[in-house]
């Protein structure tokens, strides 16, 4: 939608050939991604949990004739080297020097957000402040004096309510102004004791002429903080500066009785606090609807019900809505032309191919669309509302049993849709060990493909209650294996520190946009695979290539798992995408009634094994990219092992009772 204001005519104005770069920076959860979308029209995903925007997102904007590249930096609280996100952001701002840094702040938590603003000012970044969610702040009774804030900080301030597109035009205008005029920012001073030490070290740095891109004052502060990266960089240029910094730091430390980095952080917060207090015209915390929701979602008993409701509700919603929609669509399509899976070499190749294309398209429409869209729709609502933070709060002690903390529940829930983005979002966890443990748990999370297998094999032909039972089995397996993995991977767990941002009423536009962007990326990947896969399968089947494969795997599939011979072929197909297990079964059996080839027990075992046995190719690829091939091999082997063990046991147990 872009710059939605009436003045928007300028958006399509011809380029004046000049190019500018804006970088968006700020804390997690302040609506940076929404502003990014408003500015660039791009379909970046917007979430409501800390550290969502991990990758560097880029978009373009034409404004007042300028071609502007907008970069969305990760949401962070500081420029210490606690995480990769912080390092990436600070190097970008200091070294690549964007024309303007747009610092987005949550108007209702001004003090915490200004802590970060002060660090941007230390870096002497050309700043525009965007105070977002002023409407939410106003509802809480917080009113901010814009002129006062501009005067104290010496940078332009723009008020915005980004979800409604308010203030975006003004923001772009101010940013362009700053980019052209490059006004000199005010030099904000800290307490005398600290300021003297900074200036003392700054002079030493300036005298040494290190030839670094970073501003001298910022280097001085970072040296005093004992920042390991910066110390390394400077030590390579001049040992004297580092030695001098150590002496000065020791002086400061003994006079304050506090470590230097703590003195500096305290000082920044003290300054942020005084600026925030002076700029607040009115600040009364009113009890709002959000507080009542807060009470319900974190109540010591009811909180667990709401958490369980969110976790199970999303799955059940997907399952039942998907089920209904799938039936409707499939009935609709069969009116056009029923798929005829019965094929033989007697038919011309073209007919086989065409049938395959239609079958693949059909499968995509009846399987992916009905399950994926409802899930992502509800997920977007849940995500933007802020309820996931509360689920993370309530689930913290349970997640500790798996060596994780509460925040890990968020990627796992995301895994209901597709494991690939879920594993990517594990970056919100602090250490590699935690990311690995969370990713491992996700490889068992019932993604939409698994839901389709459960629905298409068990729900339809054995009974809904059996499909639901398999979900429960899956959750138990995730928990048990999570504990095993925690014991197997050495290391300590870090604890939870998470901002509990206030509840937000999800904006319809944001929800729809996000749903579409996620669905789109799945459709683009899945439809071609379905169509090609289906054609290939039809051809291979017609020319009888599949039987030897099935025979080779017979000891495992037939003897140990008690499945029919075709299971071997289906399981190989399923490594591409899990739904291909169902699709393949239909194609090979030559009927949509799977009971022709399977007994009910076999369907349950088949679905169980398909659910657990191997992460699909895309999941394996993302695991390899994030964690290296060794870890990926171990995870994959663990998946296969568990699937065979559980599948074999289930077969023996079920035959006993059947």
């Amino acid at each position, binding site marked *: 939608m872009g710059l939605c204001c009436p003045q928007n005519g300028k958006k399509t104005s011809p380029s004046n050939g000049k190019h500018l770069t804006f970088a968006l920076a700020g804390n997690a959860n302040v609506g940076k991604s929404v502003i990014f979308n408003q500015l660039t029209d791009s379909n970046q995903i917007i979430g409501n949990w800390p550290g969502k925007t991990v990758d560097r997102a880029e978009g373009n904007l034409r404004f007042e004739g300028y071609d502007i590249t907008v970069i969305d930096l990760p949401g962070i609280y500081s420029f210490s080297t606690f995480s990769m996100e912080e390092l990436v952001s600070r190097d970008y701002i200091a070294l690549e020097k964007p024309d303007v840094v747009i610092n987005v702040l949550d108007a209702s938590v001004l003090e915490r957000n200004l802590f970060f603003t002060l660090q941007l000012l230390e870096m002497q970044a050309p700043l525009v402040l965007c105070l977002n969610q002023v409407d939410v702040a106003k509802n809480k009774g917080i009113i901010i004096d814009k002129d006062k804030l501009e005067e104290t900080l010496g940078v332009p301030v723009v008020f915005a309510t980004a979800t409604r597109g308010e203030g975006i035009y003004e923001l772009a205008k101010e940013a362009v102004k700053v980019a052209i005029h490059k006004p000199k920012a005010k030099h904000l001073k800290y307490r005398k004791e600290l300021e003297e030490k900074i200036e003392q070290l700054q002079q030493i740095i300036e005298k040494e002429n290190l030839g670094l891109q970073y501003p001298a004052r910022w280097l001085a502060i970072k040296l005093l903080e004992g920042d390991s990266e910066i110390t390394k960089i400077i030590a390579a240029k001049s040992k004297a500066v580092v030695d001098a910094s150590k002496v000065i730091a020791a002086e400061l430390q003994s006079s304050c009785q506090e470590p230097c980095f703590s003195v500096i952080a305290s000082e920044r917060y003290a300054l942020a606090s005084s600026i925030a207090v002076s700029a607040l015209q009115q600040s009364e915390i009113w009890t709002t609807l959000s507080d009542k929701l807060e009470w319900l979602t974190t109540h010591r008993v009811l909180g667990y019900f709401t958490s369980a409701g969110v976790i199970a509700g999303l799955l059940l919603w997907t399952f039942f809505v998907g089920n209904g929609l799938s039936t409707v669509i499939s009935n609709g399509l069969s009116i056009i032309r029923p798929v005829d899976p019965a094929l033989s070499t007697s038919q011309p190749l073209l007919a086989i191919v065409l049938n395959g294309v239609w079958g693949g398209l059909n499968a995509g429409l009846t399987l992916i669309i009905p399950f994926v869209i409802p899930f992502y729709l509800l997920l977007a609502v849940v995500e933007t509302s802020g309820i996931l933070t509360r689920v993370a709060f309530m689930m913290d002690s*349970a997640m500790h049993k798996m060596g994780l903390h509460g925040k890990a529940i968020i990627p796992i829930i995301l895994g209901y849709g597709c494991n690939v983005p879920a594993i990517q979002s594990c970056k919100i966890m602090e250490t590699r060990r935690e990311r690995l443990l969370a990713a491992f748990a996700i490889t068992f999370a019932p993604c939409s493909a698994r839901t389709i297998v459960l629905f298409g094999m068990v729900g339809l032909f054995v009974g809904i209650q059996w499909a639901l039972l398999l979900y429960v089995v899956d959750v138990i397996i995730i928990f048990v294996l999570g504990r095993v993995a925690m014991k197997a991977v050495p290391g300590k767990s870090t604890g939870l*520190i998470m901002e509990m941002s206030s509840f937000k009423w999800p904006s319809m536009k944001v929800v729809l946009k996000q749903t579409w962007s996620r669905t789109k990326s799945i459709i683009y990947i899945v439809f071609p695979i379905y169509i090609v896969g289906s054609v290939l399968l039809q051809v291979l089947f017609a020319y009888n290539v599949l039987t030897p494969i099935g025979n080779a795997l017979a000891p495992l599939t037939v003897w140990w798992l008690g499945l029919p011979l075709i299971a071997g072929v289906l399981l190989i197909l399923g490594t591409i995408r899990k739904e291909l297990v169902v699709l393949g079964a239909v194609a090979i059996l030559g009927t949509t009634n799977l009971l022709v080839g399977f007994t009910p027990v076999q369907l349950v075992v088949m679905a169980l094994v398909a659910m657990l046995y191997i992460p699909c190719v895309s999941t394996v690829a993302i695991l390899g990219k994030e964690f290296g091939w060794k870890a990926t091999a171990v995870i994959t082997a663990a998946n296969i092992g568990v699937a065979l063990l559980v599948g074999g046991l289930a077969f023996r147990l079920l035959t006993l009772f059947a």
Partner: protein
Amino acid sequence: MEQKSTQDYLKAVYVLRKNGDLVSNTEIAQKLDVAPASVTEMLKKLSEEGYVKYSPYHGSTLTEKGLKEAQRIARKHRLLETFLSDVLHIGKDKVHMEACQLEHALSDEAEESLCRFLKHPDTCSDDGKTIPACDLPFSSCEECIKLHDRGLEEVGKRRENLVALSELKQGQAGKIHFIRGGHAVLQRLLDMGLTPSTRITLIKSAPFDGPIEIFVRGSKLAIGRGIASKVFVEPEAKVNS
């Protein structure tokens, strides 16, 4: 039955108190394995000395003075237990009794050396309970490491009585004085605004040793129990609920 000292009684009340409820004489008698009559007698004495607030038939709570003394002993006891089990590998069944004997003889100086030697443990490795903060006037363990050769007299003592953030009552506020743990934890907490002298209010604690929710600098934060027991605050007496 052996004679129990003032310190044993204070420690018993300290361990038994939960959420500020009164501790009954029966509980103390059971804990220390002494006759109820001697408990009554001893509590009266402690009350006169200003260590406990004792109301007959209801029970007792620790005063500021009593809490300070009890935490001092509990700290020595739990450090010793950790040392005995982790370093000397003494059996779990004997660790507690050994520590009970040794705690009375351990000097303050030896206690601080022990704390540094054990790398500032958070919890006792015998029963997992939080080890109270030391009474040196530092705001973090980093300084203690850097300044430890200055001698205890020169460093002086902390006046305030500190409790872990996780021990605050719902609605109670406190001011941060000390954060235990290495550079990484400290930096993370500082970045989130938990700097020394900051006022924090506990909004709620999740059950099952789950995280706590606090109000700090105009916003709400969730903090895991493990980290919350590293942050030590001077509690305010008034509780707003």
